[in-house]
């Protein structure tokens, strides 16, 4: 009896040892296979994640209740946006400018020599098209009126704004705003660096440098490297500035923001930023009103969200990555 029990115990122990040996062998083979294949499984879930995603999260309490409408221009590689006095929309892209009505219906399109970098509609209804290093003026029907000389051999134009007397052209390479007459005569330079007077000038680390015109005809220009908007008289004398760097909603994030901005009819500012992609509205006292659109609504690498505002205060935002224009209704702002 005793020997039987001993035998059973021995058998159980032997079976357990065999099972254990098989398990170890299977585990060893699996490890070997993983090692040889070099796949090592999916590490992306366990990869360390910096808290950048947290920083990019939009504070929902600051989101403004706005309605959004999307229009889809027919041209590709969108890079510039403008709205005229009749609330027609102009988009510039790969060697073409397209005009659409407020409902997104195609009106007409004309071809230009190079890829469009910036657009503006003058008070006289002419279309000012910024190409890589010079400005071309077109009639509304698409006929070319004039091609202005390049202000500098290395100029890279990023924005145009015009009044009835002057045209302002931002150049990110020379870090300056060129001042032209409406006939295309180069009159001067705005915001030039002057070491003697301890003027830093525009700091433009990347190819985003925007200008816009206030209701009184004065000039606003972004100083993206200084994270602020600067105010100049119409002939280019510095008046004031506002803005500060910051990852919070009130500040301008990253190395160089705001990348684009526009002025509303009531004197408010609309700004768009890269890195943390967001479109914000500041009142005329430069206090944050709220966020129209946060990072969550855009592609991770969204860039160049050109802005325009029409006479009714609707905000137009270019979405170049998706080839469309978003229109945010002003009703609730």
């Amino acid at each position: 009896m005793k020997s039987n029990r001993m035998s059973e115990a021995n058998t159980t122990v032997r079976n357990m040892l065999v099972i254990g040996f098989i398990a170890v062998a299977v585990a060893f083979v699996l490890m070997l296979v993983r090692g040889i294949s070099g796949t090592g499984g999916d590490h992306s879930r366990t990869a360390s994640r910096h808290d950048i995603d947290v920083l990019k999260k939009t504070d929902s309490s600051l989101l403004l209740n706005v309605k959004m409408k999307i229009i889809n221009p027919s041209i590709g590689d969108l890079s510039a946006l403008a709205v005229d006095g009749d609330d027609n929309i102009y988009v510039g892209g790969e060697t073409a400018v397209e005009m659409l009505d407020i409902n997104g219906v195609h009106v007409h399109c004309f071809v230009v020599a190079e890829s469009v970098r910036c657009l503006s509609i003058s008070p006289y209804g002419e279309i000012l098209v910024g190409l890589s290093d010079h400005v071309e003026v077109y009639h509304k029907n698409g006929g070319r009126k004039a091609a202005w000389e390049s202000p500098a051999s290395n100029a890279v134009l990023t924005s145009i704004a015009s009044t009835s007397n002057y045209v302002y052209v931002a150049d990110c390479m020379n870090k300056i705003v060129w001042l032209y007459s409406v006939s295309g005569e180069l009159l001067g330079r705005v915001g030039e660096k002057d070491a003697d007077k301890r003027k830093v000038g525009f700091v433009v680390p990347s190819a985003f440098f925007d200008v816009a015109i206030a209701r009184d005809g004065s000039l606003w220009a972004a100083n993206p490297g200084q994270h602020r908007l600067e105010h100049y008289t119409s002939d280019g004398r510095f008046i004031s500035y506002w803005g500060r760097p910051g990852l919070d909603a009130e500040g301008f994030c990253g190395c160089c923001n705001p990348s684009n901005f526009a002025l509303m009819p009531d004197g408010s500012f609309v700004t768009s930023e890269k890195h943390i992609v967001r479109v914000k509205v500041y009142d005329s006292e430069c206090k944050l009103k709220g966020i129209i659109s946060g990072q969550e609504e855009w592609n991770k690498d969204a860039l160049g969200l050109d802005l325009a505002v029409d006479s009714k205060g609707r905000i137009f935002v270019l979405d170049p990555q998706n080839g469309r224009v978003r229109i945010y209704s002003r009703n609730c702002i």
Partner: protein
Amino acid sequence: MRFTMDTDIRGYGEKPKSRREFFRFIIRWILLLLLGLFGGMAFVRRRCSLPGGPGNGKACGGCPSLAKCKSPYSWLAKPLGSRRTVWQLDPAKCIQCGRCATECVLQPSAVKCIHRFDMCGYCKLCFGYFQPGTSVLTSAAENQICPTGAIRRKYIEEPYYEYTIDLSLCIGCGKCVKTCGAFGNGSLKLQVCHDLCVNCNECSIARNCPAGAYSRVPADEAYLFKTS
């Protein structure tokens, strides 16, 4: 089937007479196979370099980048004395997970942060240098993103600063690369430094890279830089 001296290995009824004849028969077949293999390789290499072929009229240099070769026989086209290759990290694929610092057989890692000055904005507020959210822009350790203080910040003129990497301190963690890419121009890149890398057959970082950013590249084009 058991293979014996009596087996009909020639397949037509004739049996080998002796051990010597058996070995002579085997060696003859091996030589024939080798001749066929070398002839095939020569043919494919020539076909690759012909106009209209996968090499498009140019000698493909022994197919250093076999992934780019369209020939289905590209593996055959690789000559025995091919160009020397080394491990490198593609910045366009890199997600800065931090494994370059921990998985390399060398400590500190052979992966270092390299600064592309031509892409740098020389910003006063550099997100590759300062912790996000830093309010006071001083070089105090708590403000810096680099855990080893490997980035040097030098004043040039208001408001421009130059940032240089002390490679002897850099551990290749990629924290600065991540924030520079997220908030700046992305001028900081991780690269395998070939004066340090021991070029293991199987790179332990490559094996554990979640983004598959590592590949072998020709040694004479050993550095890959993403352009802005």
